[in-house]
Structures are given as structure tokens and as C-alpha cells.
């Protein structure tokens, strides 16, 4: 098991006051809270910070940890010396972490203190049984529906109250019409409850993989579609990709760059379905031959044109 440097995790000096530790923790907690942060590993870091704080906020645990601390570096393979905490006495509520998922390192030092704090007692007996996870799907899955196989790890308490990691595989149906940020509740698929209690629910938050062409806002889908200058000027029927496959699309003559064409009901399915917006971009052929150069010069002669007229120059 790896040694954890709780001071580095909180970004404080070893001689920080209790107030400094609290300030550092509060700041990091606000930044890393999984409901707030968009960082991919926010949840793990939030837990890590919570664990560090659980030790350093408690003067008894902190002193005990300190006497270990100096000889160890973060990440070093660690085994607690026998009777390392002999002579230290712990009082009152155990740690008040949001859930009992502290690291092996923590458990080896402080055990799995069955908390007597009413706030986390509730957490331990009921809240811990609801679990949540994220599932990444392709945009196309939202159009068709899909099945995803998830490998979930969670900690459970064994008969003697010690936590252990348990892995399980779930096959979950992703319904057609799901949108990014929505949650699917799977009743009874959370962690097992206390002995004799009911299992909690599993909340699955759906996110879309980033798509090469499409970008999604709620139930509407956007596509930036390049067209040639003559297609925009003269009008054309072209082929445009959609998440359901290519469609024929009529570009009206006189279309400017940035023109938005709405394909009603071609967004994410539902009641009502979203729309697909095609935003035109005008792509210019490079003047890489004498013939193309001549054609551009021809156009310039044919149509005096000041694209900056509206800027007053």
C-alpha cells in the first residue's frame, strides 16, 4: 500500500495551524466537489482531500500521523510499524467523511471507525447504499438506443464491518432519446444496504463522447457544414451528414456564411424531438493554379465588392 502525504494533498506546510488546514480544505473541497468540478478525476481527488482533512483536522490523529510522517514519501510502499499508534487515544466521532471509501492506507492506520457522528451515521446506514456512476455514450446511441456493459467497483462492508472492494458487471439499456446530463435510475442496483436492509439505487449519469462533427445543446444538435462559394451564391442540393445518416439538403441561393438551416425533428428523438441545425461555412478553394487565379480575377472584375462596407472603410 502506498504512503499518502496528507500535507501535500491539502497543499499545506507540515507546521500549518488547524485554521490553515481548515481553510485549505474548504477551498479544495469547493473546487473539487463532484457536483461542481468538471475535471475527470474530481471525485477521486475530492475523496483524497476529504481523507487528508479527516486526519489533519483531528489533533489526535494528526499527532499520530506526524510521528510516522517524516520517514515516508508519498507513493512509497507502506506498512504501518507494529503498535505504531500505541499510547494514542482517540475520542469522539470517527471521521465524518461523506462515505466510507477512504483508502487502504487510512484504514490501516485508523481502522474503519464506525462513526458515531449523527451526520455520517445516517450516511453510513442509508446514503452509502445509493451509488452513482457515469456512462459515456455516442451521440448516435441517443438516436437509436443502445446497450452498455458497465464494470462498477464499490466498497461493501463484510460481516465484521470492514470494507472491501467488490466489482460487478451490469448490462444497462440506454433508452433512445437520452440527453447529455440526464440520469437513469436503476432501482435496487446500488450497494447492498445494512444487513437486512434494502439495496440502494444506482444513478447513472449519461454523457456523450465528443463528436467529430456534431455538437449538442440539450435536445438540439448542431453541424457546421462547409459549402463552396458557388453553392452558397447560386444555391445547390448537397449531401449533409446527420447522426441518422446522410441526407440531401437544399442550400438556398444567396446564403451567407453563418446561415442556419433547421432540420425540424432531426435532433435527439423524444416528445418533442430536438432539431438539427446546419450552420453554413463558406470554404474557399485555394488559388493554386493559373486557371483558379484567373477565375478569381474574373470574379473581382465582374462584381465590384467591398466586404468591409459595413465597417465604414
Amino acid at each position, binding site marked *: 500500500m502506498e504512503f499518502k502525504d496528507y500535507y501535500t494533498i491539502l497543499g499545506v506546510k507540515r507546521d500549518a495551524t488547524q485554521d490553515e488546514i481548515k481553510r485549505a480544505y474548504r477551498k479544495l473541497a469547493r473546487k473539487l466537489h463532484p457536483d461542481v468540478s*468538471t475535471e475527470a478525476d474530481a471525485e477521486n481527488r475530492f475523496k483524497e482531500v476529504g481523507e487528508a482533512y479527516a486526519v489533519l483536522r483531528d489533533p489526535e490523529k494528526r499527532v499520530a500521523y506526524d510521528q510516522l510522517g517524516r520517514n515516508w514519501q508519498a507513493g512509497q510502499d507502506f506498512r504501518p510499524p507494529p503498535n505504531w499508534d500505541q499510547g494514542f487515544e482517540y475520542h469522539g466521532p470517527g471521521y465524518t467523511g461523506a462515505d466510507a471509501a477512504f483508502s487502504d492506507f487510512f484504514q490501516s492506520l485508523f481502522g474503519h471507525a464506525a462513526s458515531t457522528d449523527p451526520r455520517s451515521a445516517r450516511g453510513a446506514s442509508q*446514503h452509502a447504499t445509493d451509488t452513482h456512476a457515469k456512462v459515456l455514450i455516442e451521440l448516435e446511441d441517443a438516436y437509436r438506443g443502445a446497450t452498455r456493459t458497465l464494470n462498477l467497483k464499490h466498497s461493501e462492508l463484510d460481516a465484521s464491518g470492514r470494507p472491501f472492494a467488490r466489482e460487478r458487471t451490469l448490462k444497462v439499456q440506454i433508452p433512445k432519446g437520452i440527453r447529455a446530463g*440526464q440520469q437513469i435510475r436503476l432501482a435496487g442496483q446500488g450497494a447492498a444496504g445494512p444487513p437486512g436492509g434494502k439495496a440502494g439505487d444506482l444513478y447513472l449519469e449519461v454523457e456523450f463522447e465528443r463528436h467529430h462533427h456534431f455538437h449538442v445543446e440539450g435536445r438540439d444538435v448542431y453541424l457546421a457544414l462547409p459549402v463552396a462559394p458557388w453553392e452558397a451564391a447560386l444555391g445547390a442540393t448537397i449531401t449533409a451528414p446527420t447522426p441518422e445518416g446522410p441526407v440531401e439538403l437544399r442550400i438556398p441561393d444567396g446564403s451567407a456564411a453563418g446561415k442556419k438551416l433547421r432540420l425540424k425533428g432531426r435532433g435527439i428523438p423524444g416528445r418533442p424531438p430536438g432539431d438539427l441545425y446546419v450552420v453554413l461555412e463558406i470554404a474557399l478553394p485555394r488559388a493554386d493554379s493559373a486557371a483558379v487565379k484567373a477565375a478569381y480575377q474574373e470574379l473581382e472584375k465582374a462584381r465590384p465588392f467591398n466586404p468591409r462596407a459595413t465597417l465604414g472603410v
Partner: protein
Amino acid sequence: MSSKASPTLAGEILDEQLELSLAELCRACQVAPAQVTEYVSEGIIEPCAGEPGQWRFRGVSVIRMRSALRLQRDLGVNVAGAALALDLLDELDRLRMQLRGDAR
């Protein structure tokens, strides 16, 4: 519950289509009805129908309420603070979405 060769599970989407009673919302969030009343009066969640006592809620209320509860528990903010944070997070989400569209 531990399921190796399991059948495919279908859950329910917590969206606008799904309606819950006060009791169902309380169960999902593991709170007492009084706390739901407090959240409603703070504007964190909004009943979609019904007289007080007969309230109905949309599925998204579960997500919002659970988020607010976590923020309160983990960050030590009060109900008004959690409400503010959620509103700002919504705004942030909206702006990020727009930004992603504009960056193309």
C-alpha cells in the same frame, strides 16, 4: 444483485416525462417531507402540479435535490447557498455548451 451473466437492465430516466409524488421524492432523496418543503420554498425544486400535500414533481427534481443535499453535506453551505451554487452551475453548463459550439 451481483450479476455476472445478467439480463439487460432498463432504468427510468429522471426527466420531464417522469412524475413523482412527494413520498417518492422523499424516498429517492432519503429526506423527510419537511425538507422538501424547505427546498421548494427556496426555489431549488418546483412542484409541477398539485396543491401542497398533493404535490407532484418532475424527475429532474431528484437530480437537483440530491445535488443540493451533497453540496450542503460536503461543503457546509446552507440551503440558500446550495440554491445559489446550483443556479450558477446551470448557467455555467449553458455557457460551456455554447462555447463548445462556437469553438468549432
